[in-house]
């Protein structure tokens, strides 16, 4: 097991609110680590709407999801905060008022404070609700490709019509023995360039394209051996294969957070509005994932919540020190922390 990482605050979620929490903790002199299940910083802003405009960030009349994240990263640069991407916190436990957390890759953190800024939960692949699909998961059915060489000389069926489905159809066509791409309609929601590449491969006979069909079942013995697809009139057809790749995008799930003993309100975590602490001392929730009467799921609300939670986090991390409130405009101490003085 790797060595334990000690920090003043472990932040779950690298979206805008998690990033601003780094700032609010940082100017109080608290260090933090950020863990996020995605492969990039920015949460929904980066994953769901990088190019879509946002008009309700105070003093920013217009920005995009991506530019907001870039600016926040610039704002927290002085703190050199470590990010642990592609990792999810699976377990938390408490020992004498210190939280111990374990990630999906077995990293262990010890901290007095946990900030859950997890948006609507972690992004997980969208899986068809078919019993056999879960049965053959990792036995021929995958939702992502860690090592493409695994697919050389394999007979593959790819489901989906977005960027991932098309990028991998094009890429794997170079090494696979056979590829069939199945999509529910004739239009594709992928980059035009990739769509043309795919259509060229179809013309050359290197890829079979089946549209207006959807996955209906999968079958096999120890491993998956065929997919059953269904057209719009309900006619079924069986396709033999070695491997199935399903690219139906990502979905947000609360995941392990469900089991941590937090008071939940539907898919949100209940907090108080004084310091956004949950029913567990030292565990705070902010941004879209938090719930209190009157809650609005706005980025600006998350910023406020992070600022107040940081105050309480200080008390827990530095029980022997007194916190004096200071403005960034006039505090030479804060300006030193930000590296501007």
């Amino acid at each position, binding site marked *: 097991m790797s060595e334990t990482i000690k920090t003043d605050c472990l932040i779950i979620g690298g979206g805008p609110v998690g990033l601003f929490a780094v700032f609010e903790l940082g100017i109080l002199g608290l260090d933090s680590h950020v863990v996020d299940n995605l492969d990039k910083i920015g949460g929904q802003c980066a994953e769901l709407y990088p190019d879509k405009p946002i008009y309700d960030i105070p003093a920013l009349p217009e920005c995009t999801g991506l530019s907001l994240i870039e600016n926040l990263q610039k704002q927290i640069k002085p703190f050199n905060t470590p990010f642990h991407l592609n990792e999810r916190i699976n377990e938390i436990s408490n020992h004498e008022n210190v939280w111990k957390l374990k990630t999906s890759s077995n990293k262990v953190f010890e901290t007095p404070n946990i900030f859950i800024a997890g948006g609507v939960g972690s992004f997980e692949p969208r899986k*068809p609700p078919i019993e056999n699909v879960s049965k053959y998961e990792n036995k021929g059915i995958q939702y992502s490709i860690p090592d493409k060489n695994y697919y050389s000389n394999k007979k593959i069926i790819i489901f989906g019509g977005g960027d991932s489905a098309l990028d991998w159809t094009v890429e794997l066509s170079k090494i696979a023995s056979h590829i069939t791409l199945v999509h529910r309609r004739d239009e594709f929601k992928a980059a035009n360039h990739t769509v043309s590449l795919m259509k060229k491969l179809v013309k050359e006979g290197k890829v079979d394209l089946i549209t207006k069909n*959807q996955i209906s079942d999968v079958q096999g013995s120890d491993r998956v051996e065929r997919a059953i697809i269904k057209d719009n009139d309900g006619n079924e057809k069986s396709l033999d294969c070695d491997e199935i790749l399903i690219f139906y995008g990502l979905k947000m799930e609360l995941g392990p957070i469900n089991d941590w003993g937090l008071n939940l309100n539907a898919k949100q975590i209940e907090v108080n509005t004084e310091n956004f602490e949950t029913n567990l001392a030292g565990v705070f929730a902010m941004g879209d994932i938090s719930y209190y009467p009157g809650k609005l799921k706005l980025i600006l609300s998350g910023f406020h919540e992070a600022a107040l939670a940081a105050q309480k986090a200080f008390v827990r991390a530095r029980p022997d020190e007194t916190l004096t409130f200071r403005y960034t405009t006039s505090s030479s101490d804060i300006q030193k922390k930000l590296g501007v003085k």
Partner: protein
Amino acid sequence: MAKIKYIELDGKEHEIEVSNGLTVMEGAIKNKIPGIDADCGGACACATCHVYVADEWINKLPKKDDSEEDMLDFAFEVKESSRLSCQITVSDELDGLIVKMPEKQF
């Protein structure tokens, strides 16, 4: 105001008066009708408010825009009658609308 009938998978019917301007999804969520999840809150970003509209309503509703059609790629068992209920805004013309919930939201 429109009276909308939501039918659960097991056939249980909920007839609800929904105010103009709300979406069919919001009508379901406000009245705690099971079968519509609406994870993203109506931003057309998740496809978990998928419904089937009754056949006679398919052509009476305002047409799907591209973002709804794209997002339906992520719904399960999509049919000609499939819609995302967050993209249907309620008006007087929708009085009598019938929507059925799918077997599962993806």
